[in-house]
Every structure is written in structure tokens, then in C-alpha cells.
């Protein structure tokens, strides 16, 4: 029996039973006392470990969460408060002025639409390409498949700045300059390798028996993929979609190089609040806070799928 299964089976049993045949089951009063003391010691140890873990967890949460909270608080500060020396965490006076300034700026609404459009197209492209690629690689196990997946990994190592300018020139020569499709294709070059790797690990976790059973029941190979495998890895697809969406949603460099009037996305507009003549912290943080809302909502919406997807890839059958 595997260790994980044994732990799971033992979970409902008494400590004595769990201890196994070598553990003493009877004894004197002093033995019971000693065991009682040991159990108390063990409990105390567990409590302190748990406390330590909670402290570490809280520290990690502060570390990750504080910058965002600071951004959020700054977005409600008055102009002079945003540049206070030394800085303050909470606004002295709460105001929505920064949100009005940021959202009232020309081009902001259009940039939001562009960001959504680009991220959706890029996510769709990534999934449409990554799902069959990953399925083929994991199921056929060919040499070319292995080379392909390694090559996909290598493309992740190339700094985006190295391909940004050639990619922008290529798109311009194809007549796609300043279009969301050009930016989506560029973003897909970032998310596709990761999507293939993620989907490969999810497909590997699906027992082949499932497909074979479906085939026995009359499904074709593609039918088994569509009707059986894809529903099983839907959590994994959600995780992959989230990563692909986020990669596009937050991307800045390609957007800077490839967009102008028609397809400028919000990260570039946020950066525009820092100019050679000053930094408008309040408006910048307000727009950044608004821009975070869709991805936060998306993550909450797909939370269950994400957790399911994460665990799907973690344990192989």
C-alpha cells in the first residue's frame, strides 16, 4: 500500500491501532501516566508548531498582500498625502478624486476594452493550441513530441525584449500593426509554452483506462478526448486559462512596442501616469486598483476549478 493511502486509511483509527503491533497496548498506571505526559507533550509540541506555522503564514500574507493594500490605500489619498515623507499607510483624508481623475482620462475605457479583448483572444489561442499539443505529446510519447515540449520550455527562457522588436516589425509588415490580434499573438508566445506544460501534466494524471473504456463503449479517440478526458481535466484547463489570461492581462513590454491608438492596453496607460515631469501616484494607483478587479473576480469565480486543477496534476494514478 502506498504511504498516502496508508495515512488516509489510518486517519479514522485510534492512536493505538495506528501505532501498530509493536506499540504496547497494556501497562501499569505509571506507564499510562507516562503516556499521558507524552501525549500532553506531543499536543504542546503540535500547538507550538501550529502557532509557528500560523505566524509564518501571516508573515507571508503580509509580505504578499501589503503592496496591494498599500496601493489600495494610496488610491484613496489626497495628492499631498500620496507623496508624504515619511509615507503613511492609511489616508489622512479619504477621497475618490483619484478614481475620478483616472477613469475620466481619455483612452482609459478604450484601453480596458482592448485589454479584455486581447486577453480573451490570447487565452483562446493558447487553449486551442495547447490542449491538442499536450494531449498528443502525453498520449503518443514520441521522440518528436519530447523534443517539441523541451523546445517549448526553451522558448520560455528567451527574454521577451529580445523578440519584442522583431515581432513588432513582423506584425507591421503583415499589416497587423496596432491591432489586438497582433498583440494577442505576441501574448500567446508567452503563455503557450506554459500552457502546454501545464496541460501535459494534467493529461498525464488521467488514467488511460478511462479512454480505453470510452473506446470500448464506442467512442472514437477524439470522441474519448472530447467526452471523457476534457471533462476530467476541466479544472486543469481552468488553471491554464487563468495563467494564460493573467499573462496577457498584465503584459507590458509587447503592449508598449506594438500598440498605438487602436489597441493600447491598460498597463501602458497606467505607466503613462509616470511622466518626465512628475508622477501622479493617486491616479496611477486608482487605475491599477480598478484594473485588478476583473482578475480578482475571475480567480474567485474559478476558485474551485483552480484548486481541483492544482490537485489533479499533483497525484498520478
Amino acid at each position, binding site marked *: 500500500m502506498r504511504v498516502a493511502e496508508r495515512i488516509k486509511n489510518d486517519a479514522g483509527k485510534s492512536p493505538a491501532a495506528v501505532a501498530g503491533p509493536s506499540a504496547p497496548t497494556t501497562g501499569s498506571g505509571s506507564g499510562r501516566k507516562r503516556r499521558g505526559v507524552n501525549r500532553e507533550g506531543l499536543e504542546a509540541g503540535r500547538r507550538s508548531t501550529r502557532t509557528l506555522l500560523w505566524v509564518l503564514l501571516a508573515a507571508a500574507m503580509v509580505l504578499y498582500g501589503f503592496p496591494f493594500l498599500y496601493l489600495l490605500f494610496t488610491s484613496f489619498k489626497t495628492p499631498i498625502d500620496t507623496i508624504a515623507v515619511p509615507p503613511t499607510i492609511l489616508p489622512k483624508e479619504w477621497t475618490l478624486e483619484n478614481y475620478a481623475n483616472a477613469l475620466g482620462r481619455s483612452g482609459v475605457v478604450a484601453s480596458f476594452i482592448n485589454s479584455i*479583448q486581447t486577453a480573451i*483572444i490570447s487565452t483562446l489561442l493558447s487553449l486551442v493550441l495547447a490542449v491538442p499539443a499536450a494531449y498528443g505529446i502525453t498520449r503518443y510519447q514520441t521522440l518528436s513530441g519530447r523534443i517539441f515540449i523541451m523546445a517549448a520550455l526553451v522558448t520560455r527562457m528567451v527574454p521577451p525584449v529580445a523578440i519584442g522588436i522583431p515581432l513588432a516589425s513582423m506584425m507591421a509588415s503583415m499589416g497587423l500593426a496596432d491591432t489586438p490580434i497582433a498583440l494577442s499573438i505576441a501574448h500567446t508566445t508567452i503563455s503557450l509554452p506554459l500552457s502546454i506544460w501545464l496541460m501535459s501534466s494534467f493529461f498525464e494524471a488521467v488514467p488511460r483506462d478511462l479512454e480505453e473504456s470510452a473506446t470500448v463503449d464506442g467512442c472514437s479517440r477524439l470522441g474519448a478526448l472530447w467526452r471523457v478526458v476534457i471533462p476530467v481535466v476541466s479544472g486543469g484547463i481552468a488553471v491554464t486559462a487563468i495563467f494564460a489570461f493573467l499573462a496577457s492581462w498584465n503584459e507590458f513590454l509587447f503592449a508598449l512596442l506594438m500598440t498605438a491608438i*487602436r489597441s493600447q492596453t491598460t498597463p501602458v496607460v497606467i505607466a503613462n501616469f509616470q511622466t518626465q515631469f512628475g508622477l501622479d501616484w493617486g491616479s496611477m494607483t486608482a487605475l491599477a486598483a480598478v484594473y485588478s478587479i476583473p482578475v480578482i473576480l475571475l480567480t474567485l469565480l474559478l476558485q474551485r476549478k483552480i484548486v481541483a486543477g492544482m490537485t489533479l496534476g499533483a497525484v498520478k494514478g
Partner: protein
Amino acid sequence: MSTRKTINRFVTIGGVCTAVALAATGCGAGGPSTTGSAGTSTVNVLVEAGGHAELTGVAEQCKKDAGVNVNFVELPYDGMFNRLSSEFSSGNVSFDVAALDSVWLPSFKDAVQPIDEIFTDEAKKDIFPALVKEANVDGHFIGLPAWTNAEIILYRKDLFEDAKNKADFQAKYGYELAAPTTWKQYQDIAEFFTKDGMYGTDVKGGVETEWLAHVLQAGSPMVLDGDKVVIDNAAHKEALDFYVSLVKSAPSGAAQVDWAAAQNLFNQGKTAMTRFWAHAYRQIPKDSPVAGKVGTAPMIAGSAGIGGVPGPWYLTVPKATKNTDAAKKFIKCAYDNNSMGIESSLGLASRISAFEKYQDKAGYESFGPLIETLNGKATATRPATEKWQQIVDTVLVPMLQKAVAGGDSATLLADAKKQIEDLVK
């Protein structure tokens, strides 16, 4: 289910997705077109985000006067140089007019067209001499200064006019407390106000322009004299020693202080004086503790007189645009309506007559000192080398940071000379 059926389903879904994607990307949400087609009266103007407001009024006026519609392509300063390099080198430009920082002009001089016809004799008289000189590259004018700036002195009028401060200063230094005009006065006043948690001034280790202004005031060209590297001469050392001497009257961490930090310190009331770009005067927040208490004065003078480094932006027409006529019409509009920039949030212009028109109006007290600084005897633009940005980033700023942290000025300047010689050879 048969394989054919499944394939059909995949093909249908894929087709729908592709159709949606293509339909959605026919054009983005920002506007109808990126590049102005040949002969149209619409121009795309590439501009740094901070300068956009400067040209908004001009664009509206240009539509009325010349029938030229303007779309602005707004980019952050840090990414603009890369974008310009990429588009100019590919020969495919997404804009018909580009507003270029003066330091980029030498780098892109071959990618933009001459606009000599705009520089009439009358125009040349109405633009600051240093800018006329800078705009002329290889015998042709390639950029019209849309707006310009220079560092002036901003000081706390309330502290300078305080009777006790005046008396104490007189007693300690033997002359009247007033806006500084010389290096010595600046040092004394900075030292005097460094007390009770306040500092006399800031020292900016993260930027080079201010030190370069002091080099000019000390009587030397900045860094390069023609092809010769002169950064180790006496004037550079004198300017560096003066710059570093102010560290004791400035907040700690001078090596990291840049424009934004210095502006914050002054607007928060932490420093009594700052040498800063003139536009900052009109950008003091209304709720700042120093709002309404700030005075302005021209940049201080060294042995060579008042000297500043102008910070103009030039409107240029790329050779690759198909819309040259409309682009030049827009530039002419920008010249004719130059004073409209003063009404914008940045509040700058490039024509002397535009600044003079406003200098006596309330709220524009920075213009008099700005005009005086831009006309200063020692005022000069940065060296016209395409390596300038590289020299700044890799040599000048690191050298200043070491200097304000206590490095030996002569050694640092000698090292800088070697590095710059390697870069420009």
C-alpha cells in the same frame, strides 16, 4: 460518436472562435486608424505622456485653422526611446509627428525630415538661442521646440521673509537673507536652514543635469568640447566639489535622490530651497504645506554667470511618414499657437514671446526666472552626440552617486574620462 462527427465539432468550434477573434480584432477600441494614409488631413502625433496636455489645445486649434485632425499616441517616457528606435529602424512608423526629447535628437537625426521652412528669421528671433542651435543638425532644422524648461530656484518665501530668520542670518553670515544668486550664497542659506528637522536643500545623486548646469556656471562645456572629453578639467571638479559640499545640508541618501524625490521633499516642506525645473512651480499641490509660500529666482551663477541646461522637446516629421504635408501643417500650427501650452497642466512653451506674455500674470511667477535662465550667459544644451544617453546612464549618474557618497572627486572624474573616451571613440 464517429471520428468524423467529432472532427466536425472541433472544426465548428475552432471556426467560431477564429471568426469571433477576427471580428473582434478588425479594429481596437481606441480609434479607427493607426497610420495616416497618404494625403489625408489626419496626423498621428507620438508624444510622451507628460507632454500630451501641452499639445491638446494646439490640436484643437489646428483642426479649426488648418483642418488637420490629430490623434495622439501617448507613451511612457521610459519606453519611448525603444519604440522610436524600433519604428525608425523598421521604416514602418505608426505616427506622422514625433515629439522628441532633446537628448534623442542626435540619435534620430537621420530618420527625420528637415523643416527649414518653419524657421524663418522672425521665428529664430523668438526662440531661445540655445534651442535654435540645438535644432540645427548638419545645416538643417529638424525639430521645432514645442516647449522648453530649465532649472530655476524655488525657495520658501515665508521662511526667507521671517524677521527672526533674517536677523539671525544677517548676524551669522554678514549679509541679508534673500534668494541666492551665487554658489556661496546657496551654500550659506542651505546651511542656515538645516535645523529642527528641516534641510536647506536637496542633493540629487540620481540625476546628472543639475551638476551639468553647475559645470556650465563654472565656465566649461559639459563633458565634451567638440570631440574632446573634458570632464576632468578644473571647472568640472569645481562644480562637483560644490555639488558635494551641499550634502551636509540635505536629507540623507543623496545618492538615490532623483527629481521625484526632490520635488516631494520640497512640496512636503522638508527643504527650504531646491534647484528644480520651472514647471514644478505651477504643480505644487493646493493642499501642500508650502502652497502659496514659494518664491522663484533664476538659477544661481558661478564664475561664468547664470547657466542652465534647457530641457526642450522637439516636434519632428519622420522621413517614413506618408503624410508629410499634414504633419508639417500641424508643426506650423504648434508654432503659431505655442502659447496655448501655457494654459495646460504643464504650463510651458518654447517661444520667448509666449513666456513674456504671461510672466507678469499671477500664478506664472516662475516665467521671469525661467526666461533669465534660458537667456543666461552660460546656458547651453547638452552635447550633440548619439552616445549621450549612454554616457549619462553608465558614467555620469554612477559617478555622481559615488561622489555624493564620499568618493574623491578628482579620481572619479579621471575614471569617468576614461570610460567616456571608450564610449565615444
